């Protein structure tokens, strides 16, 4: 019975469908973050001076480093796919680990960034924040909401990438069947894509 079920699954394998499904899922993520971008757009237009003032609290160097880290990681995972497609299994696995490492660096940076803010008592609902101007309060609310949701996706992405690497090791993902890695990479690129917009919008407000 089990064997029949497995044969059944193989017969119905459709990589194009899997990839299309992944793109559709990416669309939902764009709209999900899109809601936050909408809130940002509205409040930035209303409170543009205060947004600028508040953004000075952020460290552009941290932000730039994180941007570089993610861009490099994006290239790494794209190369990992190329490697797998060319039967360079070892290289592929190493590149995935590089990507995961970059993600880890990103999260460590984020941890320090947020930590510094918490130390200065800047977080939603804090006494200090409540005393600031409206634009400042909303800016930080958006900062935490957007980078927080993004960091959650980075974490999930790390898990997915590690799963992909394990499956390559186990031989379940290989040059003849790589859609799992392809889709994992797409998810990772999305995480990078979102940050590409978050960085200038949160850190570089003139």
């Amino acid at each position: 019975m089990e064997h029949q079920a497995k044969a059944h699954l193989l017969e119905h394998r459709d990589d194009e469908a899997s990839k299309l499904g992944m793109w559709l899922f990416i669309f939902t993520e764009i709209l999900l973050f899109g809601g936050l971008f909408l809130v940002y757009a509205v409040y930035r237009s209303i409170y543009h001076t205060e947004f600028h003032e508040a953004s000075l609290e952020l460290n552009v160097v941290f932000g730039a480093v994180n941007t570089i880290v993610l861009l490099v990681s994006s290239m790494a995972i794209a190369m990992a796919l190329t490697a797998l497609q060319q039967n360079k299994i070892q290289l592929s696995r190493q590149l995935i680990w590089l990507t995961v490492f970059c993600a880890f660096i990103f999260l460590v940076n984020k941890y320090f960034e947020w930590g510094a803010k918490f130390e200065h008592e800047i977080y939603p609902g804090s006494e200090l924040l409540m005393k600031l101007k409206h634009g400042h309060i909303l800016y930080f609310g958006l900062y935490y909401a957007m980078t927080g949701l993004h960091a959650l996706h980075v974490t999930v992405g790390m898990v997915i990438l590690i799963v992909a690497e394990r499956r390559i090791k186990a031989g379940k993902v290989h040059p003849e069947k790589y859609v799992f890695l392809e889709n994992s990479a797409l998810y990772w690129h999305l995480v990078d894509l979102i940050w590409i917009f978050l960085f200038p919008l949160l850190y570089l407000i003139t």
Partner: protein
Amino acid sequence: MSDNHHSASTHITPYRTLAIVLVVLLALTFLTIEITSFDLKAWNVALALLVACFKGYLVLSYFMHLKYENLLIKILVGMVILLFALIIVITYIDYLFR
């Protein structure tokens, strides 16, 4: 049925292409930081966003392989971006004219 295993385009992106894209992306990142260090009023946001969009285009086209995908996915990506833009614009019309 059995030939659905491979992508419609079994195009493999060369390492070189990916590396070049990264270099361009890094350059654009520094460009953005530079542009936003001067006060150009409303142009700051516009330019920063424009550069971000171009970076996004590069990530979509080369890293995410969209350049080599079939037409359907390309059209869908375009439509989703258009929808998102419309929603922002229409909401803006409320706040801009209050």
